[in-house]
């Protein structure tokens, strides 16, 4: 324990020295999303600017704060001023900001997004007063965007591993009790009480037990786990250690998607650092507790989010689910009691142990305590990763945090392919496990996909079913054959090849698949269809009766045409059309031959965005022709 005190003291000093640094600090968010938005170019620009202008400054790479629509994000802390944040920074802007601020002491208040100081500062708002951040409660995401995720000292300096230290002073039963009192439920989506799972496993008679961290984030449209691991890997690892101590496991696995190379790299790096601080291996922090972690890269199968399928995959088998009971907590990996917890669940544990269950219960509502992270994406103004107390109404998330939609709001999908499509009139539903289930959706792992009037819900249902159909493991007939049949019906609806009878057939198929499938994948697969049929039936009816897709998405029901009055005859569309469907001499309105048109959208885009084009190409319903 004494060594640990020393590590903490040193880490705190390193952190304090960094904050009080004499030379300016430049923070850059370099999680995957930042990199995708161009952070690598910005990094190069920062380094060249510093060098060329002989500026003495230091670059600190941090994770992601969650305001993804503002990426790349660069913060500068200098001259004793609070750290100031700049958004959507291009290479050129980075150079300009750094030169102005660091050479002329002009921090460009108008360009700045916000500052991270305690008091008000120079016409720049506080970053946490930003409308996207103000309603949030950041517990799990506390460190994201603030610390260098590759430096364990930063984590230690901000109370890292204090939860583990406290846990080791308690008995395993007391740790489970504390988690039980907090009311924490599984953040992977199903909401099973975490402590209950732990207790079943702890009480199982076997000597050997395992803990598995499920980081196989397969839900398309969700990236909470990736961001947390990339930005604060030690939080998840600390939670895993506490869980292992509580259930009596000495070996743990992290099952993570191979599609997340940066997250895997950060985890490996973090585990190596833990070794140097005696936080992993034999006699952790001088206690009797010994524990090792192995990383298993998932090879890509959505069904492996299901616990028994995941276990089979770790065992080197096809990832197929099996009947339960026995539950993994009694008989799991290699037949031994195994707890599988989601990344976010584990990331929450250190906070609960450190601050106590009562502290945690102040957030959220009865039976749904604490916070939940969501990835807010789709047709919304402010996309990003957020954390809110459970019980927050959807409306608040979409309008206050997300800033609403550009066009008319249509629906929000929670829970990904297993969830439901929620219409405007139900937006006051509080986000809790029970309230979402009551309206036919699920909490899920945290994907929130917002749709506006440009999204066709029938097409969306087809998309989800197609996804599930491809991911069905094929073990049980209702899921394997039933979902295929549902996809076929939906495809026909989208192409206008089927009449109104199809809706009844679709509904009965959905109910059959839901009630007779073996695992969660099949049981929840029909949810997108059932909820869209329930809340958006008129839109289905328009497809099958009027052969009309109101969102102008279903390509069998739309066509492209040229508005002659607007067409400038610039021939840009002629040059991009892959099938020669558009013809016409220069400077005269062009002609679009619908029989040749494959609806690839190229002409539409070029006509809209090219300076000399006239925005003359329109997408219209086939019926209007």
């Amino acid at each position: 324990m004494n060594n640990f005190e020393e590590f903490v003291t040193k880490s705190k000093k390193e952190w304090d020295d960094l904050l009080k640094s004499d030379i300016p600090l430049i923070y850059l968010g370099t999680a995957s999303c930042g990199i995708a938005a161009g952070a690598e170019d910005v990094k190069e620009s920062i380094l060249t600017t510093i060098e060329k202008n002989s500026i003495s400054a230091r670059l600190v790479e941090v994770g992601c704060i969650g305001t993804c629509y503002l990426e790349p994000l660069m913060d500068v802390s200098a001259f004793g001023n609070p750290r100031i944040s700049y958004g959507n920074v291009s290479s050129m802007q980075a150079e300009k900001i750094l030169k102005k601020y660091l050479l002329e002491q002009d921090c460009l208040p108008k360009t700045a997004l916000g500052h991270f100081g305690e008091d008000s500062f120079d016409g720049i708002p506080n970053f946490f007063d930003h409308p996207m951040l103000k309603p949030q409660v950041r517990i799990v995401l506390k460190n994201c965007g603030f610390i260098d995720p590759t430096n364990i000292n930063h984590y230690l300096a901000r109370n890292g591993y204090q939860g583990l230290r406290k846990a080791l002073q308690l008995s395993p039963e007391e740790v489970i009790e504390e988690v039980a009192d907090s009311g924490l439920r599984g953040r992977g989506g199903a909401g099973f009480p975490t402590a209950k799972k732990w207790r079943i496993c702890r009480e199982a008679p076997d000597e050997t037990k395992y803990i598995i961290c499920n980081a196989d984030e397969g839900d398309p449209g969700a990236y909470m786990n990736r961001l947390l691991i990339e930005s604060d890997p030690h939080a998840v690892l600390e939670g895993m250690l506490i869980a292992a101590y509580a259930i009596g496991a000495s070996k743990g696995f992290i099952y993570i998607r191979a599609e997340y190379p940066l997250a895997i790299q950060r985890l490996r790096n973090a585990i190596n650092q833990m070794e140097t601080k005696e936080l992993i291996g034999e006699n952790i922090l001088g206690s009797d507790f010994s524990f090792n972690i192995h990383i298993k890269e998932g090879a890509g199968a959505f069904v492996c989010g299901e616990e028994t399928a995941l276990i089979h995959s770790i065992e080197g088998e096809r990832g197929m689910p099996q009947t339960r009971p026995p539950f993994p907590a009694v008989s799991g990996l290699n037949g031994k009691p195994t707890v599988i917890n989601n990344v976010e669940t584990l990331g929450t544990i250190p906070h609960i142990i450190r601050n106590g269950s009562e502290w945690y219960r102040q957030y959220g509502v009865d039976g749904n305590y604490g916070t939940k992270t969501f990835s807010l994406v789709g047709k919304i103004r402010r996309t990003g990763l957020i954390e809110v107390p459970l019980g927050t109404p959807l409306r608040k998330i979409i309008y206050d945090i997300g800033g609403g939609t550009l066009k008319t709001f249509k629906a929000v999908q929670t829970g990904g392919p297993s969830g439901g499509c929620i219409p405007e009139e139900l937006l006051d539903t509080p986000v809790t496990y029970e309230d979402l289930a009551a309206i036919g959706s699920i909490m899920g792992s945290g994907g929130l996909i917002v749709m506006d009037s440009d999204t066709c819900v029938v097409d969306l249902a087809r998309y989800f079913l197609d996804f599930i159909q491809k991911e069905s493991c094929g073990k049980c007939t209702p899921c394997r054959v039933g979902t295929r049949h549902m996809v076929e019906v939906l495809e026909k609806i989208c192409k206008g090849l089927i009449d109104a009878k199809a809706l009844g057939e679709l509904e009965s198929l959905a109910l059959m698949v839901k009630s007779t499938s073996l695992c969660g994948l099949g049981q929840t697969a029909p949810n997108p269809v059932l909820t869209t049929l329930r809340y958006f039936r008129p839109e289905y009816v328009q497809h099958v009766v009027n052969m009309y897709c109101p969102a102008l998405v279903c390509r069998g029901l739309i066509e492209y045409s040229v508005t002659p009055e607007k067409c400038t005859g610039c021939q840009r569309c002629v040059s991009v059309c892959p099938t020669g469907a558009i013809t016409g001499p220069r400077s005269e309105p062009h002609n679009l031959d619908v029989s040749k048109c494959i609806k690839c959208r190229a002409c539409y885009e070029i006509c809209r965005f090219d300076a000399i084009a006239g925005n003359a190409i329109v997408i219209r319903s086939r019926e209007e022709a």
Partner: protein
Amino acid sequence: MENWNLIIDSVLKKYSVDSSNLIPLLQDIQNEFGYISLPVVERIADYLKITENKIYGVASFFSQFRFTPRGRHSISACLGTACHVCGGEILLETLERELEVKPGECTADMRFDLNRVACLGCCALAPVLKVDGDIYGNVTVIKLKEILAKYE
């Protein structure tokens, strides 16, 4: 061929003879060769003392494994929900048409292989396309040509 055997040997050596190592082993092999070939499957079966059938059963279950060679560059078109809503399907179709390949295949000149992926986790930038390690966000049909032109 000798070299080929040496590479396989060096990979196999890292793993104990335990069938639970099958997936990491296949991943390692794919990192080396870009795909899983029949001769490789034979070697693994021999080493882990399991049948070739079993290996094919596991490998074909997971979307990561491929059985055809890769091109010089790998394109992954993201068809996650956010990308779908923002037009990802049209992008994939355009790629299929321009490159004259289906997902999982490689162009005749070995320049590109095309893959569809469920989600790259960059949903805020939808629709997203990944070429080798580079991620492109907010991609449109007309931007595609520019992007592909960067890779020879």
